[in-house]
């Protein structure tokens, strides 16, 4: 059953009409999830501007930590492809267990150069994915978490004193050894996933890269996020000037990570209508109480809170040609769906559904501009 209104099977036309009614009834609507290809994001932004809706991505908590560092200090980074070819030293920051597949793609290719891996809290799975012989140099200080160890390491790299009592003599020795190993790199990278770190850790990791780069070459390799999060950031930025979370108060594109945090808006009751988009993963919103919601989701999505309208859509990377961010090349890439699968899928794309809702609301095609 690909189209439902209040849990009952419905026609696409009726669902679009109801979706338009739900969204236009909101005084503070949100466009959330945003797990879609570039065409979907472009369409969603046009509709959001029309509705003056807040726009956020499902990966927002992690995204906002990376974006905050980007806009507060800047960053020195390298594409994962070039990192995989060039890095002779890699510092893994945080657990990264869920990123083992990505690490293997980036660093574990056949013919990759010999490299030294330093682990600051990396799981065995992540370390194994690096494809280097032997165990990584592990930087685990008893009783001191990843963040504080990272801060202490950054201090030692910069030749600054640290709290020796807390770190212990062996802890300090390990830190200094690691600092020496890192400084000996010809080309070193620091890898992290902001989903597993707090904001200060991300800032410290980015700062460590800058410090190390003063003498050796260094660059950061942050994981770009799931569900085309990095692609959504790019499309939002060239379309509105800003990354998500963003909104259109008074029709003016505005970036404000607190004000337009769609989860906060929903939890506080501020949001009174929602468009949920998850076309890459069959994921429902985690909201425990939700305003009337229109959900554009991959088939098989199960909901805790039944949305007013559900329209199942094509999986962006599986049954429709799509432009998506590639986590290995760090660029937007065309992904062609297998011809047979695309032809067999009768579901609409996110962009097509949103254009239909937009047309219903404005009487004008959303697609032309």
């Amino acid at each position, binding site marked *: 059953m690909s189209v439902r209104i209040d849990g009952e099977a419905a026609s696409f036309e009726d669902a679009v009409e109801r979706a338009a009614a739900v969204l236009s009834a909101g005084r503070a609507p949100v466009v959330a999830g945003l797990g879609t290809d*570039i065409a979907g994001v472009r369409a969603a932004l046009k509709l959001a501007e029309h509705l003056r809706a807040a726009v956020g991505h499902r990966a927002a908590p992690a995204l906002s930590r990376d974006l905050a560092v980007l806009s507060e200090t800047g960053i020195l980074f*390298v594409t994962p492809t070039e990192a995989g070819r060039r890095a002779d030293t890699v510092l893994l920051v945080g657990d990264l267990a869920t990123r083992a597949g990505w690490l293997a793609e980036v660093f574990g290719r056949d013919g990759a150069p010999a490299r030294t891996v330093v682990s600051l809290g990396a799981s065995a799975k992540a370390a194994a994915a690096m494809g280097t012989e032997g165990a990584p140099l592990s930087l685990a200080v008893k009783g001191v978490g990843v963040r504080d160890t990272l801060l202490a390491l950054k201090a030692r790299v910069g030749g600054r004193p640290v709290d020796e009592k807390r770190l212990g003599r062996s802890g300090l020795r390990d830190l200094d050894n690691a600092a020496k190993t890192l400084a000996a790199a*010809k080309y070193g990278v620091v890898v992290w996933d902001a989903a597993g770190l707090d904001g200060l850790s991300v800032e410290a990791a980015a700062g460590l890269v800058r410090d190390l780069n003063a003498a050796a*070459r260094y660059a950061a390799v942050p994981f770009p996020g799931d569900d085309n999060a990095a692609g959504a950031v790019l499309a939002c930025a060239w379309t*509105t000037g800003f990354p998500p979370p963003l909104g259109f108060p008074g029709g003016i594109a505005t970036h404000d990570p607190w004000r337009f945090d769609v989860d906060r808006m929903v939890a506080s009751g501020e949001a009174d209508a929602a468009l949920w988009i998850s076309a890459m993963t069959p994921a429902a919103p985690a909201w425990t109480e939700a305003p009337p919601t229109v959900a554009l989701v991959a088939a098989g999505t199960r909901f805790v809170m039944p949305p007013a309208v559900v329209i199942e859509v094509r999986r962006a990377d599986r049954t429709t040609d799509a432009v998506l961010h590639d986590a290995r090349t760090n660029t937007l890439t065309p992904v062609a769906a297998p011809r047979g699968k695309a032809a067999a899928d009768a579901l609409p794309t996110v962009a097509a559904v949103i254009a239909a809702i937009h047309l219903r609301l404005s009487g004008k095609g959303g697609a032309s501009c």
Partner: protein
Amino acid sequence: MLIRLKDGHVIDPAHDRDGIDDVWMQDGRIVARPPRGTEPDAVYDVAGKIVMAGGIDIHSHVAGGNVTLSRLLLPELHEGTEAPPDGQPFGTARWSSYETGRLYARMGFTTVVEPAVAPSQALQAHLELADLPILDKATLSVLGNDEVLLGLMRDKAGRDAIADYVGLVVAKSRAIGVKCINAGGSAAFKDNVRTFGLDDVIPSYGLSSRQIFKALQQAVVDLRIRHPLHLHCNNLGVAGAIDTLVETIEAADGLPLHLAHVQFYAYGSEGKRGFSSGAQQLIRALNLNPNVTVDVGQVMFGQTVTISSDSLRQYSANALASPNKWIVWDGEGNGGGIVPFHYKASNVINALQWAIGLEIFLSAHDPWRVFFTTDHPNGAPFTTYPKILHLLMDRDERARYIAGLPKAAMALSALPSITREFTLQEVAIMTRAAPARLLGLTDRGHLSPGAIADVSVYTDTTDRTAMFERAALVFKDGNLVVRDGEVTEYRFGRAETVEPGFDKAIVRTIDGRLGDLYGTDTRQFTVPAGAIGRDEPFRVHPCRS
């Protein structure tokens, strides 16, 4: 629909037209005056107004990875203040693609070239350009630090293989030409080299900057691409860089070469600050080398952000970041850097940079070879063009500026003694006729029958800033898109491209090299038309026959 622009002062230097005349348009093209008695569908009385072809900007960073990084680095510099008019979504969203198109159009510009697209980011750049309304666009593919080219050269693959590779990249990434940015400099930076001159060598390849740029220059000639190699030289912004610039001009050996934003190299090392104008040395070199064209990269005072694929230079400039934050990145080729910068009228060096740019414009003998740019946004945002045109056309306006600038700076430049004032004819050459010719876009930059009907109409007033800030009328492909300096409706132009011929066998070679290097293939820089989301997003122009 037949349109008549009646009794305007038509300035069309490509055909030596400069006088009162009509311009006729039909079905998106300029047409000859129809037989007597033919009634036009629309008549615009433009008596007393200036009529030119639509403006063409050959070098402006308006799209792609680095531009979007600058958006993310500096959200506080582009907060919005007004909502867009109906039917023009995001048109006032500052620093957006949409706003860029709107602001260019209101000045009478109808074509813009994004001059620095990393092949791997070509799709992103074209998507961004697809959301830039009104104007036609074009891109240059950045080569010269990419591991594939360097590998081909190291392995002595030969001139034909290099041309085939360059042709493949240009065709697949939908570019109109080739850009080379600090040839070898970014590759050397990845080897931890921090300065890189014309004859310095990349440690891991043993190739010099000179060898790389000359190989690319030859490839562009061999491929018959009309736009010459577009080169960003070594040592940008360094005192004494005029020597590098002149050596590079001489190294061109008579082959066509375009040098970008030369103001940033026209620096001598004289005076007590070790920084002086090298403008006159540049002019001498240009006069001796008619194969070379340049654009200026004029500086204007105020806050801006420098955006460049010269990662080595941007890293070395990070101490000057204002506000104090910056981005530098490494990639398979050039990478890039974003460093915000504030040009201050009270700063002797900045004031001298401003003077050197104007000195180059006003000392150049041939306006067909010196192009009008600010290297947007590196010298200044493109929205300062009207002010710069005013300065070029009005010596009193220059005197007003000079009076407020540090005397120490003005003493080091010939600018205060220059009395030349640009004519409207010269402005039309620099911003219309010459750019079209340099890009090989024979269908624009002029107003003769057959040209696309991109036409700008300006109110002729002595306040040239006001005149060029808000065109009275702008037609794009014969459609009225601007009236009284305001965009009336969105239309979306195309990306202008070339498809040079190359030996298809090169695809396998390059797939193999990319596979070995990165586990990727030529799809990494292939831009499918269907991915852009607009009808007929590309138009192909012929290469030299």
